[in-house]
Each structure stands twice: as C-alpha cells, then as structure tokens.
C-alpha cells in the first residue's frame, strides 16, 4: 500500500511548531475498537431532549407541511400569496435553496475525496446525509407548487394512453430528470461507504437493530477482495457524481436562464448558481457539524476545531467566488444594454424590497469577509455556527431576489407588482425545514454518523516520525 512517503511542509521540532499536531484527528489515533465503541454510543444514546425534539418536529411536519399542503390541494393554489405577475414565490425559492444545500455532501465527500483533502474524513457521512435529506425536502416543492398535483405523473416519461411524452424542450423536464438522477446517485454514494460501518454496527448490536443492520450490511465480512471492490466502486462514484452535481444546479438555473424573463435570461446563471449552492451547502455542513458536536456524545473527538477552520477557509473562498459572479451578473447586464434588465437590477437595490438585497450582500459578503480571515474566529465553533447560518440566510435572500422580485418588475409597467408570502406558504416552508431536521435527527440515531473505517484509514497514513530529536508529522499516500 505504501508507495510514497513525504513530509509535510518544513519539518519543525514539535516544541517550535505553531500547534501540537496531536490536536489533529489524524495525529491523535485511538484503537479501532475504541472508535467503534464511541460511534456506537453516539448512535444509541438518546436523551429526553432528543425525543422531545423528534416529537415536536414530527408534529410540525404533520401540521405545517402536510396539513397546510393538504388544505392547499383541496382549496387551490390561491392560498399562497402568489399573484399576477409573480407566479413563482417562496415555493420555488425554497426549492432552489434545498437543491443548493444538497450540493454540500457531494462537494465534501466527492470533490474533497478526489483532491485527497484529509480533513474531510470524519464528516463525509454527515454531509452526504445532508445531501440526501435536502434533496428529499427540495424534491417536494415541484409537487407542492403544482396547480394540480394529483396529475403530477404527467411530467414523468411513461407510456400512456394519450401517446404523449413530456415536452423534452421544457427545462422542468430536465429538472425532473436531473434531480432524480442526483437523488439516486447520491443515495448510492451515501450507501457505499456505509456498508463497512453497517457491518460494524451489526456485530455490536442485538435485537431489531441487529436485524436491520444485518440486512443492510449485505453480508460484509471485510475480506481483502471486498475492500478492493468497495474502494473501486467508491472511486468510480466519486468521479462520476461530480459532473452530476454540477449538472443539477446548472439545470435548476436554466429554469430561469432559458426563460425570456428580463433578469433571468443570463448565461452566467449556471456557474453563478453552482457557486451559490456550494457556498450555502458548505455553510450548512458547518452548522450541522456544530449541532452534532455539541449534542452527540464523543463527537468532539471526531469533529474538531481544525475542521471548522478548514471549512471556514473554503467558505471564504466561495464567498469571494460568489461575489465575483454576482458582480459579473451586473457587468454583463450593463454591457448587454437591455433596458429592462438594467432597470430590474436597479430596482433590486432601490425598490420597496431593497432590504432583501442588502441582507443578501451583508450575509454573503460582508460577514464572511470580515470574520473568516481570522483564525481565532474560524476555530470558534459557535461563532462559525452563527456565521454559517447567516450565510444561508443570505443565500435564501439571493434566491428571493432572483425569483419573486425579478418577476414583479418586468417589461410593461402596468404589470408591475409585489408579492408577499401568505401563512400557508410560510407554514409549508417551515414544514420542510422541520422535515429535514426530523429526518436528520432520526438518521443520526440509526446509522453510524462517522465513517470509522475512513478515519482509521487516515490515521494509519498519518504518523509522527522521529527525525533526529524532532518529531515530524508525515503522511503516507495510500494507493
């Protein structure tokens, strides 16, 4: 396995180094059995507070999501605040928001895996779970916002009595195909690295848990051949899922960019949306990691300040990239010279809802740029929690600006209009947030949230070597 051994940066004696490398998870190994026990304990420990949250969230999902949605199906879309000319409101805003969040898992576990970023190891699973559940919450919206949801299957290409395929020119059909592909492939990608951990859980549980894990572990025994196949499969998926991830949000952006609507009709939307999605997704990973670290036992061993630090740096870079694309949107519009589009951009900044626009800029640019350069702030988990929540508020405001505010200010002044969300819409949006949290809460106690084998693999590759009198951190590259 070990083919190459190299030292990290300049070898400094430990005493002179900035920090003790043992602060890093990779240089602070514990025996496999102990890590197994810690993960199992984290998974099986439930407090009274946990169940209170589960029951509370389940009630919110039942009432706010399914209750309000059911009522809207029976009464009509009119319960939502949308009206001419703003036909898409917070349903689509939240849809784009969730699809954006769903980019985190793939970004963290596929892109960082491909680039061999070692800090990803303990939280790949946590972010992949986010991908799956964010997609589950987001994929509800195309249904929720349908005027006649009871015939939603007409969007699916299936042989039918009408001899009619869906219209493959419509971006909504592309959307449907892209999201389905992403949901399926990200679920498989979540499942593959989970198999050894499920086997680990199977061997350490009894009763119903044992039965479930035995079924899901697919008879994993941990032989060399099994590991070989698993690694190959994960590798193939890691590379294959990256273009899928890029395609999903590009296609979501085409829902807008393909239209003739002034302010949407922009070629920059594809990369602009992807950068925004990764920004909000990685921010959401940080928020979730903070919650996991502070509520689950033993998590502070796996999730450390170094992880917040590393993700904070990433966020700073993505915030800058987002700012570039945001600026670019204005630049191209100005250069393109279309009067309506130019007026819309002015309207965003000066119109009655300009506070949304400023909120977006403050949360997406000002706050990250003012705070994330600072190492101390990056290494303060609660500060990172607040910053990342604000980034997601900013990203929500961005989508709100792009969708209802742009629609309300189109070419003919007679048709200008504003839109305010109504209680039904707000309730459904809260409902899907609760759904996401509920699914995550349940999953956190059902599947091992830390990929123990990946952590152990990393720890085996990282060693402190003695060079003369100094201890030098060194990494052995695997495969």
């Amino acid at each position: 396995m070990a083919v190459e051994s190299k030292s990290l940066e300049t070898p400094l004696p430990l005493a002179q180094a900035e920090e003790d490398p043992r602060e890093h998870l990779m240089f602070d190994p514990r025996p496999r059995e102990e890590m197994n026990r810690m993960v199992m304990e984290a998974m099986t420990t439930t407090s009274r507070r946990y169940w209170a949250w589960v029951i509370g969230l389940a009630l919110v999902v039942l009432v706010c999501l399914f209750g309000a949605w059911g009522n809207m199906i029976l009464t009509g879309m009119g319960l939502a605040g949308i009206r001419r000319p703003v036909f898409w409101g917070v349903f689509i805003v939240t849809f784009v928001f969730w699809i954006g969040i769903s980019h985190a898992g793939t970004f963290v576990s596929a892109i960082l895996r491909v680039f061999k970023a070692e800090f990803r190891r303990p939280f790949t699973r946590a972010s992949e779970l986010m991908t799956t559940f964010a997609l589950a919450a987001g994929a509800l919206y195309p249904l929720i916002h349908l005027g006649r949801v009871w015939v939603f299957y007409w969007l699916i290409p299936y042989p039918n009595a009408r001899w009619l395929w869906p219209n493959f020119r419509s971006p909504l059909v592309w959307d449907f195909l892209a999201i389905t592909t992403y949901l399926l492939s990200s679920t498989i990608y979540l499942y593959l690295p989970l198999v050894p951990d499920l086997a680990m859980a199977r061997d350490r549980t009894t009763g119903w848990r044992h039965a479930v894990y035995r079924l899901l572990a697919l008879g994993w025994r941990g032989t060399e051949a099994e590991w070989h196949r698993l690694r190959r499969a994960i590798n193939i998926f890691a590379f294959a899922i990256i273009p899928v991830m890029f395609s999903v949000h590009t296609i979501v952006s085409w829902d807008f960019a393909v239209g003739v609507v002034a302010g949407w009709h922009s070629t920059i939307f594809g990369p602009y949306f992807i950068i925004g999605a990764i920004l909000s997704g990685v921010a959401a990973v940080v928020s979730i990691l903070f919650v996991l670290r502070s509520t689950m036992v033993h998590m502070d061993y796996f999730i450390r300040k170094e992880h917040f630090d590393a993700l904070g740096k990433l966020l700073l870079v993505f915030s800058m990239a987002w700012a570039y694309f945001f600026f670019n949107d204005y630049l191209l519009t100005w250069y393109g010279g279309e009067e309506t589009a130019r007026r819309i951009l002015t309207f965003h900044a000066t119109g009655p809802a300009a506070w949304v626009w400023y909120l977006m800029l403050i949360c997406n640019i000002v706050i990250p740029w003012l705070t994330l350069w600072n190492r101390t702030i990056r290494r303060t988990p609660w500060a990172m929690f607040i910053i990342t929540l604000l980034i997601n508020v900013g990203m929500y405001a961005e989508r709100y600006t792009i969708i209802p505010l742009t629609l309300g200010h189109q070419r003919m002044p007679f048709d200008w209009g504003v839109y305010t969300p109504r209680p039904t819409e707000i309730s459904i949006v809260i409902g899907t947030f609760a759904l996401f949290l509920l699914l995550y809460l349940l999953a956190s106690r059902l599947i091992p949230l830390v990929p123990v084998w990946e952590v152990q693999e990393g720890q085996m590759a990282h060693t402190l070597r003695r060079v003369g009198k100094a201890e030098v951190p060194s990494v052995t590259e695997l495969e």
Partner: protein
Amino acid sequence: MAEERPAKWGLVVDLDRCTGCNACIAACSMENNVPFVGEDEVAYGRALYWIRTQRYWEGEYPEVTPTFQPVMCQQCGNAPCEPVCPVYASVHSEEEQINLAVYNRCVGTRYCANNCPYFARVFNWFDYELPEPMRSYLNPDVTVRRRGVMEKCTFCVQRIVHGRQKARAEGRELRDGEVQPACVQACPAEALVFGDLSDPESRVSRMARNQRRYHLLEELGTLPRVTYLKGVGSHGG
C-alpha cells in the same frame, strides 16, 4: 370543393380609437366562461380576464391624460410559453396557426405565465362558482376550467372553428369579417379588427400595413399576431 387556404388569423388594435370602455373584457368573459373572482381577488391581482386594458396616466390629477392599451394574448408565432410547458398544455395549432391552451393537460407549473412577456396568461387560483342565474348562460363551446390550470385568450377559437365549418358546409370560402372574436364584436369604437392576415385585401391586412403599426415588445422576437396602431391624437395611446 376547393382546397381550403390555411388562414393566418390576426388582430389589429387601433389605439387612436380605443376609449378604454372595457366592453371587450365583458364580452370576452361572457363568451369564454371566464369566472368572476370577486372584488377583493381582482384587487389582489387575480382577475381572470383574458384581455385587459392597460391604463397609463400622464400628468397630475386632475390634469391627467389617460391612454388605454388593450392587451390580450399576442398569439406569438414564436411563443415563449410553448417550449417551457412540460406537458404540452401550451401548443401551437396547425390549422389555425394560433397558440392554444389545452386545459385538460395543464398541471399548473405556471412556467408559461412567467415566461410570457405580455403576462397574457391567467391562473385559476381557486374553483370559482358562478352565482345561480349566471350558470345558465355558460357557453357550451368552451371548456369550464377547474382550479390549478392556466388559461388565456384563444382568439375565440370556437368561433373560428364554427365559422369555418359553416363555410365548408355551404361550400364557400370564409368571408372577411365573418369570424369575429367576442372582443371585436363588442368594441363600439371598432378599435379592434380581426381577420385573415394571409389575405392581402382583408380589412385587417390593410390596417396592419398602416404606418402607425408596431408590435408589442417585438424586439424579443416573439412574432406577435396582434398589431397595434400607435395613437397620435391628443388622447391617443
């Protein structure tokens, strides 16, 4: 019987003649079973009118100069609403060469409405019940729409079809002006003129060649079938 020449239906709106009386809206609503949504909903922006009079004011009250511009579906030759519909509920009819909404197929994504630069499409936000005596004069030729579907002006396609069938039965060609949508029929000032644009001698063709002609947002390349004649009078649109 002679081979039928495919017609290219078009409408001319002479803004010099429009008085903003809204008779076209009333007639259209009666003809096409457009439900009444109530005062509050209209004020909220949920009126289901297939044709509306855009009102623009110049000056400060009471010294105002109103201008009126009736806007309906422009029956674009290159309609932005058509490619975005995932279920082919917004389609081009081959025979009439106009843009039709298939209510039964609509699932209500409302993408077409966003993508229509004229905002000519309206959505059934609720099921609307007509009060009792009015239920009796629903037009049997037009589908009554339920909640959750999109609808819009069809150039009164039922009248076009009816007129063509009648002409065919009598073994003759359609006469100019024989088919008229409800709005054209009701317009007291004859500001709206409807007819076959492929016939260069039809009244609508002659008017569409007027020097005052323009198309709404024609820079978008939608190829609208509705021609506006710019108002030049002191109260012109």
